[in-house]
């Protein structure tokens, strides 16, 4: 793999040509934690002294989540100029010759992302950020998806939304599992036995909407990031994922470490104009655990086989993997207690 120095040199050469300007590089830093792409924070200056902040997302040979960058680009593009804050896209390049791997380039937004495992990350602005967080998710769900738009996403099967997604992640589990997990197995059986209803309105699903995947500056959300798992589906899928106790593990009554559950759901309903079916949402919350397990198992497989020994691929099966198994158990127990 080439060094940052080599890559930064390739980058400035490419971007100078792209903009037809004589540019100089002020900084080129890799950002830690990118699960599916290598992410770089870049600062360039042109001849007039004008500076530009950029984000480069480059495909990794072996990543935590195998996704298509065109999907991510399409999703970012869908929300330009809407109430969903997303960075302006500059370029997408599928050619490996330019920077050694396919990449996307976008403008850098103000703000910072917090770890989803830090309980007080949003203090003292939890209420304002919470209002925005759930309201933006409602806006994502509300977006009108016309047929042409749906055609651009990989959406070939006629299966119901729930089955398409569940089958996809079960395939990952089957391919990458390195041990038998009776808890996960029980969760999967439960999902297939009690499917949810098909949604009245399909939406563009972000696929990884949670705390940690948005930028904020004080009391304002400045950007929604990491759309690489975007797809057309049931809007409750995003809600179930964002509500998952894994993202507020040390304060489970406050999803995403922002607002309490009831307030969060009310804001989402108000913003999306959709009504939540409690049983269906419950299904998607269990699904979130199984999908999460698929991702953590896949990461563990990368680590164990030596394909990618980034510590995130060890951390994922150890910590989030443990937590999601515990949540599956909690859900199964709760169901049993209700019978």
């Amino acid at each position: 793999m080439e060094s940052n120095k080599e890559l930064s040199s390739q980058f400035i050469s490419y971007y100078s040509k792209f903009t037809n300007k004589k540019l100089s590089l002020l900084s080129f830093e890799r950002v830690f934690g990118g699960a599916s792409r290598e992410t770089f924070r870049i600062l360039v200056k042109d001849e007039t002294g004008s500076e530009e902040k950029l984000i480069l997302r480059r495909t990794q040979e072996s990543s935590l989540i195998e996704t298509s960058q065109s999907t991510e680009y399409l999703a970012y593009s869908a929300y330009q100029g809407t109430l969903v804050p997303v960075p302006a896209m500059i370029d997408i390049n599928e050619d490996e010759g330019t920077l050694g791997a396919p990449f996307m380039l976008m403008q850098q937004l103000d703000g910072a992302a917090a770890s989803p495992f830090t309980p007080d990350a949003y203090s003292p602005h939890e209420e304002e950020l919470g209002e925005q967080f759930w309201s933006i998710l409602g806006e994502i769900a509300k977006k009108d998806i016309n047929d042409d738009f749906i055609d651009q996403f990989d959406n070939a099967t006629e299966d119901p939304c729930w089955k398409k997604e569940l089958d996809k992640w079960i395939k990952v589990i089957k391919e990458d599992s390195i041990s038998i997990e009776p808890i996960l197995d029980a969760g999967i059986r439960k999902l297939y036995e009690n499917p949810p209803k098909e949604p009245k309105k399909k939406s563009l699903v972000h696929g990884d909407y949670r705390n940690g995947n948005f930028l904020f500056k004080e009391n304002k959300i400045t950007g929604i990031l990491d759309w690489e798992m975007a797809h057309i589906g049931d809007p409750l899928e995003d809600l179930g994922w964002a509500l998952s106790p894994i993202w507020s593990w040390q304060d489970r009554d406050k999803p995403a470490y922002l607002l309490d559950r009831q307030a969060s759901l009310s804001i989402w309903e108000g913003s999306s104009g959709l009504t939540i079916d409690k049983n269906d949402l419950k299904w998607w919350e269990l699904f979130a655990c199984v999908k999460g397990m698929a991702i953590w198992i896949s990461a563990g497989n990368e680590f164990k086989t030596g394909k990618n020994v980034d510590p995130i691929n060890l951390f994922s099966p150890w910590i989030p993997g443990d937590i999601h198994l515990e949540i599956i158990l909690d859900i199964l127990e709760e169901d049993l207690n209700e019978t």
Partner: protein
Amino acid sequence: MKPEINIALMHAAQEILTRFSPLIEDEYEQSRLNSWGALILISAMKFNQSYSSLAEENDSIINWLRKTKQIYTKDLLEEIDEIQVEEGAEQTILDEQNQLLRAILVKAHKEVDLKEDIELKKELLNLLREMHSHRKVSDLIGLLQQADS
């Protein structure tokens, strides 16, 4: 007596986090090293329990399957009867046995799910929780936060 492996790992993690990491200027490389420090620290804290936890888990599964074996179908019953326990086995052998036992437990769970016995179902979930508690490292999440700060 020689210093224990877990103590050695713990010191290595502390050195990584407090001595070497602060010397690194590159933000990405520093975060990556901090993550390794925290993961080594977790390994150190769980190292001594790994063998006994696995042995206890295997015992718990075997005991439960034998205790409830009257409810299973003939094929599963035969599998349960064939379970053999090797006393003082090496960790790799215990691991292999654990995977076999887990596979049998999944089959048992499917059969339990078909019954109307709520108490039995609750007992089985309790067993799964006990198994999970033997293995989990998520209770050490605080260590990662300290390493990150």
